[in-house]
């Protein structure tokens, strides 16, 4: 079995598309309702970031396995302006204040694994995994 999907993000509709396929895959993999909602929210935030800050990019969702553990992996990538100061972006405290959504620290806390790679003027790749318990 190899469940996967890849959604191009160019507008708000695509955010919904990405959410939908993320939720479907999460359900198929056996995540409970709360985790489905969390994964969907994480995807939503990442897709929204792409839409708002990079203009376009893609969100790939796939099933992963590691030593018998099953999980869902999100990979959000764009060739936008990149993140200048990653430490700053990952800092806590002000993300939910302006109604700007969860921000990256929020997404990190929703999921189990989270890595970010970004270079100015080249783009950003964020990879995040939630393991099935």
């Amino acid at each position, binding site marked *: 079995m190899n469940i996967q999907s890849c959604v191009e993000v160019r507008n708000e509709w695509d955010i919904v598309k990405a959410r939908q396929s993320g939720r479907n895959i999460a359900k198929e993999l056996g995540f*409970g*309702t*709360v985790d489905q*909602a*969390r994964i969907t*929210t994480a995807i939503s935030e990442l897709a929204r970031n792409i839409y708002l800050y990079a203009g376009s990019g893609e969100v790939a969702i796939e099933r992963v396995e590691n030593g018998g553990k099953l999980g869902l992996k999100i990979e959000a990538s764009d060739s936008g302006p990149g993140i200048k100061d990653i430490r700053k972006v990952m800092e*806590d*405290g002000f*993300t*939910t204040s302006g109604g700007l959504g*969860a921000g990256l*620290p*929020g997404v990190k*806390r*929703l999921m189990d694994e989270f890595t970010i790679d970004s270079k100015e003027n080249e783009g950003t790749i964020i990879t995040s995994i939630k393991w099935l318990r």
Partner: protein
Amino acid sequence: MDDRDLQYQKYKSILENYLQEQSEQTLYKGQQFSRKMIEQKISPEEAVSLHVSVLEELFPDIPQRLKNSYDFLLEMMIGYGFAYREHQSLRSRQQQLESEIEIAANMQQTLLAGDKPDVKGLDIGAISKPAQKMSGDYYHFVQDENNCMSVAIADVIGKGIPAALCMSMIKYTMDSAPEQRMQPGAVLENLNRVVEQNVDPNMFITMFYGLYDPRVHSFYYAGAGHEPGFFYDAEKDEFEELYTKGLVLGVSKKTSYQEYQRVLYGNDMVIMLSDGVTECRSSSGFIERDEIVAMIRKYIHLSAQEIVDEVYRELERLQEFELRDDFTLVILRREV
């Protein structure tokens, strides 16, 4: 049975109980249960999800449409889950910051606070309370071999950590020029030079510096833009303002500070303070300087230390225990 099952069973039993009798007792239990959930860092979306799954067991024939509404509620709560988790993380960052500030504040205390000296014939009271953990107010007593005692009160414009960093500079500078201690004007002139050179142009320091010579019962003093103190004339039973002329430290390269002198007779008092005392703001507006005088008068039969303690206590309550500025009050009284 694992924790989750236990929780589920517990919640189910409380909820069933409530559905049977709707007693306050059960609601109280429910609230204690939710307290425990928060303790265990269970986020609000999980709490709602727990409620919903118990509900579905207790009401097996809930219509599908109603069930769907629960899914929607869950989705709504995810956002609150964000805020909740951010709260956890903020709190741990906060705890770390607070403990750092605690350590730094202790360093500051060790560094700055001089003990209240024991001067024959002089009753001394001093209190200094930071609005936050670290103070931008400063007071310091030094006693020399002739029993002369100098007293300095300073206030950095600005509060908290930056003010505290600035304060430590004052301390190093004053320590490095012990020979001037007898001339209040010269002390301020020297400090002005250092502050002007080293401190950010929009950070200012006000200061009052005095010296009491018990051999001649005289108090010599000078001020740099600092909140005026009071002089209490015991014979006339009157308070006067302790006016000083002189620019705030750090504004101009070369400034001179005029020196003043007062002789203290029995029961006369010199009252020095920072603007945190006079600019206390209560719910009914700013406290007037007159009111401070009235408070001091109210406690005038007490010792100098008791006076400053009581005034602080009263003003603290008036401000509902939230100081808006660092608070420093020092009283010297010549004993009879």
